[in-house]
């Protein structure tokens, strides 16, 4: 009987620290690959992805395999969902096959929370609509810790489409729990003023040059065209005012790191010059996805 992991907001510091510390044990540490530990042999991880995903799904699959668990992945296209079955029926059907955990991504905010109320199988939220993406925030925290050694007291700037970003929300909840100061920056139509009140220690800044000043971490977000029903501003304007370029990195703290949850749009929200620079942690983030998700699956299945 495991425990679901639906969002960062519900986790406390101790639990987050435990996951992040456990992830260290799975990191390659200069070796050829991730540890193979087989702590979850015989268990079954179902990845139910109702929304497209490449990196998150493969990362969860690798994580499960490294733990010795079996996996089954289904996607919305080609599944019974495409034939008109309701989400409840689909998940109940999967649940009847007795998996140990269902890892789920869905385009509706709260879909895993709604299902968790009606299901005994634990659920790991792999991204729900515009709400949370908890494993992304955990791997981002692991990446920051690897590089900066701490979260407390850091100035972290999150830039872009905050309104529609589940990555932003999970990161905001996590970073503020650890005493980082979080600066949110984006066009006013994508950064509602209410955002300042969803956690303590948040600052809103609509001017990117002011936002990045002295930043230890710059997190860029993808412009989520598929979730935006009206264009916030013209594409050219977007890059001009909210696209990350070297001139912004120069304004930040000398040791600043640049992050992006991917998939990134070069030339829309980030210049190639920055994305490919020494400051960029983008591939480190992807790499950390596996050990962090191993720790998350262990937490759900074993702890």
């Amino acid at each position, binding site marked *: 009987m495991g425990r679901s992991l639906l969002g960062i907001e519900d986790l406390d510091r101790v639990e987050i620290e435990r996951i992040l510390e456990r992830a260290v044990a799975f990191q390659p540490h200069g070796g050829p690959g991730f540890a193979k530990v087989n702590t979850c042999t015989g268990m079954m991880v179902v990845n139910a992805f109702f929304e497209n995903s490449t990196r998150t799904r493969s990362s969860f699959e690798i994580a499960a395999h490294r733990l010795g668990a079996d996996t089954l992945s289904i996607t919305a296209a080609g599944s019974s969902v495409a034939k008109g079955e309701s989400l409840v029926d689909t998940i109940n059907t999967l649940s009847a096959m007795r998996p140990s955990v269902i890892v789920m991504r869905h385009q509706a*905010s*709260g879909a895993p929370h*709604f299902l968790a*109320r009606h299901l005994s199988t634990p659920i790991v939220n792999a991204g729900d609509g515009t*709400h949370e993406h908890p494993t992304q925030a955990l791997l981002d925290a692991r990446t920051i810790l690897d590089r900066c050694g701490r979260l407390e007291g850091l100035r972290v700037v999150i830039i872009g489409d905050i309104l529609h970003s589940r990555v932003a929300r999970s990161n905001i909840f996590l970073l503020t729990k650890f005493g980082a100061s979080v600066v949110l920056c984006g066009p006013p139509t994508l950064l509602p003023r*209410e955002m300042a009140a*969803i956690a303590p220690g948040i600052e809103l800044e609509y001017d990117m040059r002011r936002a990045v000043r002295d930043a230890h971490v710059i997190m860029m977000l993808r412009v989520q065209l598929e979730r935006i*029903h009206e264009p916030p501003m013209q594409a050219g304007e977007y890059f001009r005012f909210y696209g990350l370029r070297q001139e912004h990195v120069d304004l930040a703290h000398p040791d600043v790191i640049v992050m992006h949850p991917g998939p990134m749009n070069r030339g829309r929200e980030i210049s190639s010059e920055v994305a490919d620079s020494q400051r960029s942690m983008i591939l480190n983030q992807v790499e950390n996805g596996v050990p962090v998700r191993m720790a998350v699956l262990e937490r759900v299945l074993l702890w």
Partner: protein
Amino acid sequence: MVKKLLIRNGRVICPASGHDGIAHVLIEDGRIAAVGPELSAPGAETLDAAGLVVAPGFIDIHVHLREPGFTHAETIATGSRAAAAGGFTTVCCMPNTNPVNDSATVTTYIVEKARREAVVNVFPIGAITKGSEGEELAAIGSMVAAGAVAISDDGRPVMNARVMRRAMETARVLDIPVIQHCEDLHLSAGGDMHECVDSVRLGLRGIPAAAEDVMVARDILLAELTGARYHVAHISTKNAVAMVGFARKRGLPVTCEATPHHIALDTRLMRPYDSNYKMKPPLRSPEHVQAVIEGIVSGAVDCLATDHAPHAGDDKMQEFERCPFGIIGLETALGVALEVLVHTGRISLNRLVALFTSEPARVIGWKGEQARGALKPGYAGDVTIFHPEYPWTYDVKNSLSKSANTPFNGRTFHGGPIVTIVGGEIVWKAPGF
């Protein structure tokens, strides 16, 4: 032989006639015959109401009975039974059926069906526009002739101000109120809950309070232009309450209703992603809830109405953003209103009765044969008997509605309906009474 029912020794509260005291109520031949401390009625059936409140039959001017067209969620028969169990003797049903009630044919169908199958009085509300599409006026005069008592495109607000103006001009001459579900659809588009820090936190699209406010403002100006009686359905925002108060100070015939759920629940009390908390207007933030309650206390809000909106279980068992809007409310209305308004000392029991009886009757304006909402001789023999304090727990499994979408399941209330009498007939009794 004339059928007589004598209700004895209850605390008779009739705000319209200023009566509040222990008395008997005699109903003869379906109509109120007399109210007084010393009544004798040989051969009358008697009902002992000692320790109970005897009030005019409660009136709910905003319900959805879902018939014709959506009878998997509710029917006139089941909805009327849920109404009776909530102490309501009269309901007005909104026209968003299938087909839409935009013609005398549909109005007549509902009236006839209700006459045969309903246990309470059912008065249809006709559509403002054909198909409630907001473009061409419906057959308003014919619907009124067939029994419609008001017009509304509830759920699909009339966005076109010119169309709304023409509807008001028509309604003024027919002496019926125009009821608007106030929501600027451009501002609310795609929204699932009140726009506030919680909508942003939960990643749900917001419906700003301004979506309601701008339409209330527009419509009040149109009411002034046309002289029509204008009624705001389920008012839910601070500014809307203020504007209705302002309109009335200027002498305009503008009224409004509040629902029990909009005064009992706010965004902080929502269970996240539970569609039993999803309705339009959405549950608002505490400042708005407070303003609506203050509006009830000050009189800016005229009456209570449930917006009883049944949806079948599988429609509500979905991702939050896919679920339809609305909750059932007939059976919990009195319990909720007592809890929020009376037990807190905000209003008197007398005023509460008015909010359910004389006030909604005034909003609709029933006259002559149809006069209701008071225990006056000649009025409809509709009586609601309730206990103002006894504890009971709402179990939606026992609901007489066909649907179970309520946030109040399992909630314990203090005070609720005991006997419901329609036209001198007992149509519902609390279990165990």
